[in-house]
């Protein structure tokens, strides 16, 4: 299960979770895969501060740079 896919930035703190086992009403075990994600506090060049999340440091930094370029006025 992807979390916060399709968004520049996310506001979820999920660090190093593996998989979660849930027992349903029918007593079936269902493994829900939860991806490892980390979030970094980011101040964009037009002043807004938010959290940027991703699976790897490179992914987070790439998202930050892209979001800054797309959202902020010419910088």
């Amino acid at each position, binding site marked *: 299960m992807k979390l916060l896919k399709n*968004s*520049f930035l996310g506001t979820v703190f999920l660090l190093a979770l593996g998989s979660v086992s849930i027992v349903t009403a029918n007593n079936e075990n269902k493994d829900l895969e939860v991806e490892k994600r980390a979030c*970094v*506090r980011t101040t964009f060049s037009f002043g807004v501060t938010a959290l*940027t999340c991703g699976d790897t440091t490179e*992914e987070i*930094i790439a998202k930050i740079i892209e979001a800054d*370029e797309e*959202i902020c006025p010419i910088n």
Partner: protein
Amino acid sequence: MKKLIILLVLSFANFQAESQNNNTFTANYEVTYRLEYSPDSTDIKDKSTEDFYLFIGDEKSKFISVNKWVRDSMIVKMAKNFNGSHINMSKRKTPKTKFYEIIFKDYENNQIKVSDRIGGDVFLYSENISPYIWQVNKDKKVINDFKVQKAVTEFAGRKYVAWFTEEIPIPQGPYKFEGLPGLIVQISDLENHYNFQLISFMELKGEKEIINFDNNKNYIKTTKKQLHQTKQDFFDDPISRIPFDLTPQDKRRIKEKYKKQNNPIELDQK
């Protein structure tokens, strides 16, 4: 036991080396093209420019924006030096790009792979390398000291005029173009919305390893048509994907910015 450990270490080293080889190819040539284009079809006089590298190997090639290439190397360095704390973008300068697309051609498997970023996600689609139908003309002239010859084709809803040189007998060109008896020195559509011109050509003496596609990357696999739709949806409503409050002024600015990006190079998305 000692022998087993040595065997395991050697197997792992071999696996690592093979993985490395599968992720890179050796470029023999580095070509730089400058694209002059009209991002807004309602204002074609408003031109933008961006430079691109075309790395050519024996069986593979990669086409990427120069600024994206530089930026990707910066990201790797920043990630290595990152200490896990706050990132402040107002203190950083990174090269700007309007082209997140990377076009990777694999002639062994007759495939083109294209990756693109939209709203923070990275998409990947594959298509077969289909031969262009070129009509080679007798017209000749000189561009950038190269003797070039004219050829015309149609691609993705646009008609193109290309000028190729047999002085460099490599059947390659910018973007997805290829299949002429020599390197494409210039190619533009008849309306001149997209015009690529060669600005440098280098034969690489030393081995230059180029990463083709990082298989570990979290790509969202898609098709060309779906990707176009996703991009269109994003351009129509970019604000919905920004999860923090923006001033009405910022919202207006961002909407206007994307509204002006309405003239993709591929009009026909089949």
